[in-house]
């Protein structure tokens, strides 16, 4: 009886030692960004071969995906209706991806510029106020001058919503009180906080 008890105790201690293994914690499977020895570059996530088209992603609508008409000109018109929701979505995306350089008003005095990045032009100069919607879309997609491209960071539809918001910013800098609907003028001195606006 006594030996049985001792034996049991020893087995328990050994078993608890086995439980310290982390096999279930670290399973031999690839979660995102987990490295591998199998491929020379160490990536378990393989990059797409050039020219790969996923089913349903041919993206041959040049107006929507490139902001260009068939003859390669920047489109003048939005590819989908601009609603208030589109502009509000554009506002949040603009504040995330554009405001670090272009600042929240679009004048180009963002924090990154203040730390030494080349100063972008203000959105409120004549050339950019007259630029086509497709031109702004193209600059976001492919970059321009010192500005890098944002194709990888911002999905296509969000880029269009940003274009809409940039248009709204431009309008706001060249508007008079008469452009504000009469019943909304009272809010001018007491602006309602915009979602995501303060941070």
């Amino acid at each position: 009886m006594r030996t049985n008890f001792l034996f049991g105790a020893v087995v328990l201690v050994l078993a608890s030692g086995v439980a310290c293994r982390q096999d279930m914690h670290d399973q031999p499977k690839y979660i995102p960004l987990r490295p591998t020895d199998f491929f020379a570059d160490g990536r378990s996530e393989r990059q797409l071969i050039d020219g790969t088209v996923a089913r349903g992603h041919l993206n041959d609508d040049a107006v929507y995906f490139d902001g260009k008409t068939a003859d390669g000109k920047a489109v003048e018109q939005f590819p989908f209706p601009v609603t208030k929701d589109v502009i509000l979505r554009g506002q949040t995306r603009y504040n995330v991806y554009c405001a670090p350089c272009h600042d929240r008003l679009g004048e180009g005095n963002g924090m990154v510029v203040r730390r030494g990045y080349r100063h972008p032009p203000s959105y409120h100069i004549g050339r950019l106020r007259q630029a086509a919607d497709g031109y702004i879309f193209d600059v976001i997609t492919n970059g321009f001058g010192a500005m890098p491209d944002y194709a990888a960071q911002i999905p296509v539809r969000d880029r269009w919503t940003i274009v809409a918001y940039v248009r709204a910013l431009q309008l706001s800098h060249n508007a008079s009180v008469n452009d504000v609907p009469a019943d909304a003028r009272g809010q001018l001195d007491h602006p309602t906080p915009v979602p995501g606006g303060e941070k």
Partner: protein
Amino acid sequence: MAQIFHHSTNTFARITIFGAVFILAFLGWAFDTLNRSAYSTRATQPREQPVPFSHAHHVGAIGIDCRYCHTTVETSGFANIPPTKTCMNCHSQIWLTSPTLEPVRASFRTGESIRWTRVNDLPDFVYFNHSIHVNKGVGCESCHGRVDQMPLTWQENSLQMEWCLNCHRNPEKYVRPREFITKMGYQPDGDQDTIGRQLVKEYGIQDARTLTSCSICHR
């Protein structure tokens, strides 16, 4: 035969038996405390990285939104580590000659990945999904802490199941409106209980019974 122990040692034996209860309780307590301690969970310990990236600088001082780099957090289960290209968006012109940033430039030149050290590492049997949390009003800060005050990034919480369940049992105590998801130092505009209950309803957050079901996190 004479007694080996004096009669008075009986008291000693009784105290020892009584004391064993406390010794066992102490051992239990010590094991439990150690298991939850930062020593065991590695919470609040900054990790070494190939480049000493400072969230305090990029988020706190410059004010860059979390999503500028972690772009997939709203749409994917996995919140991506940004590719080197994202670093180079700014560092192609700023801190151009800094030796600290050489690994970043080298990665951009050669196309080789920077080998960042993972900070928040859940066990592989937990299927955590970022997008569902972000879209239901769990702020980045609620799990990751004040990232804008971390010179080197550390894991803020224990990431133990007990900690997950705190919120899965009472989401109304932690959720915030979606527009403040990435805001650091968020303070509810009013009573958290009232706002929380309203958001739970509005965002369709499921009841505690569903949220604490095993298969919500384990498959």
